[in-house]
């Protein structure tokens, strides 16, 4: 019986493959994708592995022995795990609170909450860390001026947790809001009409339905937290994490092999979690694939539920906003905390010396945006709609980049593409490729999510009428998932404009990047200039998003749930 089944399955596979072979464009695309993904995602990772195992030209475990002996490394590993768990839990809780307020409650400040949960995604990563120092440092506005505390210390664990939670709770929010909106209200109403209280309904219906989603949100934030480089770099103080340690070992200590060995450790950790998320939890989450809820939910209006949640969210919102208000303000004072003389010097500096990075960053991001968008949709289409050998390879590799910490990817890029035939270092192309690889997973994810809600029958109809795969994709699939496509575009642009860790090894005199400029200003202690740079960067991103949305409205694409921004 089972043998028969297996044979049938195999027969199916062969049939599917045969169908695909008949379509040269499809085969070409698939082969192209496999080769490209292997070259630009797997090969650099392999290079990191290689660097870590080679000492003076021979295979050696010296780098690993060295880091294992290092007390500092063990502590760093512990730090990283502790940080991941703490921020993961906090972000998930806050993200859930916001998602719940958004989807279930007649909240008074819905719009405001939405803005706040998106702000951290579109701003350069270390902005929050800078503001945290200005607010809570020993000379901080709140700690010193308001509370009169003389020896506040924001550097270290506390500071990183605060800043990273603000940075990453939107990840959890966006994931959970999608799920919450897709829970069919009928389930909860059934419980309610049988007499269950709101709390009991929440505990026995909503929460169990969401559990896989919550675990998923936790793991995703965990992965992002351990990979985060800029926040610990700016506000970490004594507290080092694996991502910063890679940089410090490879760059500060002139020890590439040691840095690569730590990178391999971090990479294994991330991939492990990613695999866990992908193969275990995602399979359990049914809510995502049932499609849209049958009808609108009646939002909760009871005051004793609405107000506490509203107030909690509002407090967090004010807290986050106060950080952002400080960014432009930091740019107009001489030295925050010390000399409150108004000055335009920082902005002048930006416009005298910073125009080139500004131009380069924007231009390279613009190049990366459409490529990522189209590539993401094609991959999503293939994963969801086609069955072929190498499909899981494409799926896993294209999503893998999400789990690869930027520092590791950057290290891989510089060691992989410096010899012929793949001599790419020093070109703008390598930066564009790094941008694409970093943003691809989100494009693919939103494409997959959108496609899963569309009945394949529509596409099949076109196929039956004689359209080939290309025709089907361009004239049926793409129009149906254009929202996901455009939000993928926006996301790519924003991610590219604000990327730090992956590209810090790739900048050249020809192509300077804004974020690298900001980081080197932070490094030199010129917070004023860094704030001015960040202000300009945030403005560009805002304008770009506004233009894209304007374009979308003109083209009749509405913002909907599939939209990640």
């Amino acid at each position, binding site marked *: 019986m089972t043998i028969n089944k297996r044979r049938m399955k195999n027969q199916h596979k062969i049939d599917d493959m045969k169908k695909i072979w008949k379509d040269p464009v499809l085969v070409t695309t698939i082969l192209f994708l496999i080769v490209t993904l292997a070259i630009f995602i797997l090969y650099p990772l392999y290079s990191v592995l290689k660097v870590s195992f080679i000492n003076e030209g021979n295979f050696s475990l010296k780098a690993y022995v060295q880091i294992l002996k290092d007390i500092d490394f063990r502590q760093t590993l512990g730090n990283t795990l502790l940080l991941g768990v703490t921020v993961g839990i906090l972000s998930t809780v806050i993200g859930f609170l916001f998602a719940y307020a958004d989807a279930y409650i007649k909240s008074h400040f819905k719009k405001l909450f939405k803005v706040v949960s998106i702000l951290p995604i579109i701003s350069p990563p270390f902005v929050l860390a800078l503001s945290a120092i200005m607010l809570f440092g020993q000379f901080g506005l709140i700690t010193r001026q308001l509370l009169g505390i003389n020896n506040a210390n924001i550097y270290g664990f506390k500071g990183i947790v605060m800043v990273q939670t603000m940075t990453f709770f939107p990840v959890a929010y966006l994931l959970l809001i999608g799920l919450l909106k897709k829970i069919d209200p009928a389930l909860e109403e059934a419980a309610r009409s049988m007499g269950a209280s709101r709390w009991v309904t929440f505990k026995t219906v909503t929460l169990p339905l969401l559990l896989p989603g919550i675990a998923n949100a936790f793991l995703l934030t965990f992965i992002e937290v351990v990979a985060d480089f800029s926040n610990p770099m700016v506000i970490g*103080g004594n507290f080092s994490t694996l991502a910063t340690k890679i940089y410090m070992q490879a760059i*500060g200590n*002139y020890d590439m092999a040691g840095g690569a060995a730590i990178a391999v450790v971090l990479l294994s950790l991330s991939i492990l979690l990613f695999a866990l998320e992908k193969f275990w939890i995602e399979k359990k989450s049914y809510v995502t694939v049932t499609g849209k809820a049958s009808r609108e939910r009646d939002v909760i209006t009871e005051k004793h539920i609405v107000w506490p949640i509203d107030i909690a969210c509002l407090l967090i919102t004010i807290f986050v906003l106060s950080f952002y208000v400080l960014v432009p303000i930091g740019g107009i004072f001489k*030295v925050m905390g010390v000399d409150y003389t108004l000055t335009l010097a920082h902005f002048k500096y930006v416009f005298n010396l910073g125009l080139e990075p500004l131009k380069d960053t924007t231009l390279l991001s613009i190049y990366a945006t459409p490529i990522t968008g189209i590539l993401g949709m094609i991959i999503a289409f293939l994963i969801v709609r086609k069955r072929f050998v190498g499909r899981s390879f494409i799926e896993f590799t294209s999503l893998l980049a999400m789990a690869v910490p930027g520092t590791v990817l950057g290290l891989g890029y510089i060691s992989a593409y410096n010899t012929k*035939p793949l*001599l790419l*270092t020093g070109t703008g192309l390598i930066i564009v490729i790094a941008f694409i690889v970093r943003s691809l997973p989100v494009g693919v994810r939103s494409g997959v999510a959108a496609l899963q809600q569309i009945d394949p029958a529509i596409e099949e109809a076109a196929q039956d009428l004689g359209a080939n795969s290309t025709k089907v994709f361009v004239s049926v699939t793409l129009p149906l998932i254009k929202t996901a496509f455009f939000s993928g575009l926006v996301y790519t642009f924003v991610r590219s404009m604000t990327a730090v860790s992956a590209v810090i*090894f790739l900048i050249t005199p020809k192509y300077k990047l804004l974020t690298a400029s900001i980081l080197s200003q932070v*490094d*030199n202690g010129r917070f004023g200039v860094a704030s001015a740079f960040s202000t300009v960067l945030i403005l560009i991103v805002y304008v770009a998003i506004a233009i894209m949305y304007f374009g979308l409205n003109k083209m009749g694409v509405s913002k909907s749930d599939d939209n990640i921004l």
Partner: protein
Amino acid sequence: MKKKRLIALTLTSLMVAGIFTGCGSKGATVEKNEDLKLTIYCGLMEDHMVKAVDEFSKETGVKAEAVRMSSGEILGRIRAEKENPKASVWFGGPADAFVQAKEDGLLENYVSDNAKDVSDKYKDKDGAWTGIYIGYLGFASNKKLLDEKGIEAPKSWEDLLKPEFKGQVSIANPGSSGTAYTVLSTIVQLKGEEEGLKYMKNLNTNIKSYEKSGTAPARLAGQGEVMVGISYLHDGIKYREEGMKDLVLTAPSEGTGYEIGATAVLKNGPDQKAAKMFVDFCLSKKGQELGQTVGSYQFLTNKTAKAPALSDEIKDTKLIDYDLEWAGKNRTILVEKWNKAIK
């Protein structure tokens, strides 16, 4: 059927090939250009770099471009680019990184005519690198904080151990910062290994945090995050000039270590001729005096160049006879011993 497969394969290879030729052609056009060009990796402050590159281009007509990175980034970069160097000059950054690069065979020996004005102490004997400036280690303290507690600024390494400074001293991590490693190696050269490490262990109780970059301690003191930062004194001057007006600078009476900022021609770099012109320029009186116009206040290596007026207050600092070579050779071991000592 076979035909289709063939089409598919050709298309794939074309698409893949397209990626690479795209960048290949770009490189070729650069080489064809007859004018002299120069790519510089620079470890200095950004405005210093821009100024120097502009002046150099104005004087020589060479089209020079530079990018700023930390010295570790530059070393990592030129190591990775060894087969196909992208830059021809390394401009600025501590000499220990240059010593390392020389050992790896990444530098081209070049003795500039202008190097005759540079004391032997400040240049490599083979001409692999030449010093362009010197920075003294010292203490940058926050006067406001000191006054609040009624403490005097530290005047010696011993002063730093005073209990009043508990949790109020900042230094960078010798594992990641060349500046902090210079501190560690200065202490060990002053006191001997055992005593030196014991001193670092005692100092540990007063340290608030081990920062990642060497300029951070002076900045933290300037911002009032700590009372005392151990940094290069010229960084302290720079921060004070930029508005951190509470900074006071002192140097240890026992003697202190120093850094030599260097420049070098990179081996097999694409623009050797322009690179040598640039090194000549850096070592000239004019090239050296540029820094002080844009906020870099190090002492200069060219005997004929005028040191910045602002660094007058620290010019009498007592220096030890810092052994750069010893420091470079013992880096890994010393940092490891230090890590164990402070735990």
